[in-house]
């Protein structure tokens, strides 16, 4: 089925509007809900958050005490990471990162949805996907197996991030630095292997402008790759310098946690892309 260029344009505009409106509504609803929670908590507790228990008046405490931060947030706070609002116990940066990840979810859905649409309409044919079964020169493995190895690498990097965060919380700065260096190495290898796969496709004549398959594939994997590179820059410019200067201390746990959220989301996107593009 051929789609009219005007229709494609209309779909693109519709998707972009949905993306913008959806993101705005999602953030708006989230903020309003949070604001209500904050107001409710403030109604009973004048002044900053103090985790006070008054056993002699258990009913009054239940009404007036703001929600206790989760164990993870408490662990981060104990290390000296103080950017935690008084009422709900939610860090501004962490809250912002989650809202950002919500918008990223809609962004990638639009791209993945377009890929699925072209698969359904036959504009991306089984013949296009056969490229993934071709062996990659030098390595000799089919591209899909090479990408499976790349998936292992990204999953390992996610594991390394959580271990790094734990090492920071448990005041083991050398270990934390080693784990984050591991993330840097694994992320760089991931981007390198992606480059090998791309160059193989170029050699076979698949380019971004050559076909709908090429456009969809390179846009999807390209945007994901850009996210990985941004994560690596984050490590190199902000976290690792701290790790080498004075060591990552418990006060840095919040920063490592925020980076981890971003990195794990990038991992989740790859889990979805691997299944949708290479396996189905």
């Amino acid at each position, binding site marked *: 089925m051929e789609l009219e260029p005007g229709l494609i344009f209309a779909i693109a505009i519709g*998707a972009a509007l949905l993306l913008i409106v959806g993101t705005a509504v*999602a953030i708006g609803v989230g903020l309003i809900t949070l604001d209500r929670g904050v107001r409710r908590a403030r109604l009973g507790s004048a002044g900053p958050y103090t985790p006070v228990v008054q056993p002699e008046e258990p009913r009054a405490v239940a009404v007036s005490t703001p929600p206790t931060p989760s164990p993870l947030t408490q662990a981060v706070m104990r290390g000296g990471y103080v950017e935690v609002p008084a009422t709900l116990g939610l860090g501004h940066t962490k809250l912002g990162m989650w809202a950002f990840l919500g918008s990223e979810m809609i962004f990638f859905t639009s791209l993945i949805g377009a890929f699925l649409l072209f698969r359904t309409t036959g504009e991306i044919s089984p013949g296009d996907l056969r490229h993934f079964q071709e062996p990659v020169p030098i390595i000799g493995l089919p591209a899909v197996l090479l990408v499976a190895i790349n998936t292992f690498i990204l999953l390992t990097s996610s594991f390394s991030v959580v271990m790094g965060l734990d090492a920071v919380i*448990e005041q083991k700065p050398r270990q934390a630095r080693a784990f984050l260096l591991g993330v840097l190495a694994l992320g760089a290898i991931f981007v390198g292997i992606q480059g090998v796969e791309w160059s193989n496709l170029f050699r076979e004549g698949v380019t971004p402008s050559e076909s709908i398959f090429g456009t969809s594939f390179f846009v999807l994997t390209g945007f994901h790759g850009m996210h990985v590179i941004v994560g690596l820059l984050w490590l190199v410019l902000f976290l690792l310098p701290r790790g080498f200067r004075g060591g990552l201390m418990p006060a840095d746990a919040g920063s490592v946690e925020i980076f981890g959220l971003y990195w794990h989301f990038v991992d989740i996107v790859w889990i979805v892309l691997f299944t949708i593009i290479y396996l189905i």
Partner: protein
Amino acid sequence: MTHPQEIELSTHTHKRPNYLLVFFGLLALTVFEVAITYLGVPDAILTAGLLAFMLFKVILVALFYMHLRVDSKWFTYIFLIPLPFVLLILAALYFEAQK
């Protein structure tokens, strides 16, 4: 005077999930995913199976690595708010493909 809850906070030991187990679970699921594509399973079952494995992996990462299982429920709500829009986009594209 030290408060009872302060004592509880200061002696709290950082309990972590078994990250290694989650990691091996993710690896095993990925191996299964790749393996079943070579088994000649009918397309419909293969697609359903692959999507189920994918969803399970996503949930594992979100719950354990992103700490949604132990962290404040607010973050889970914020992460889930865009889901209806995700479904809306996919539904719009699906109906477009049916034309």
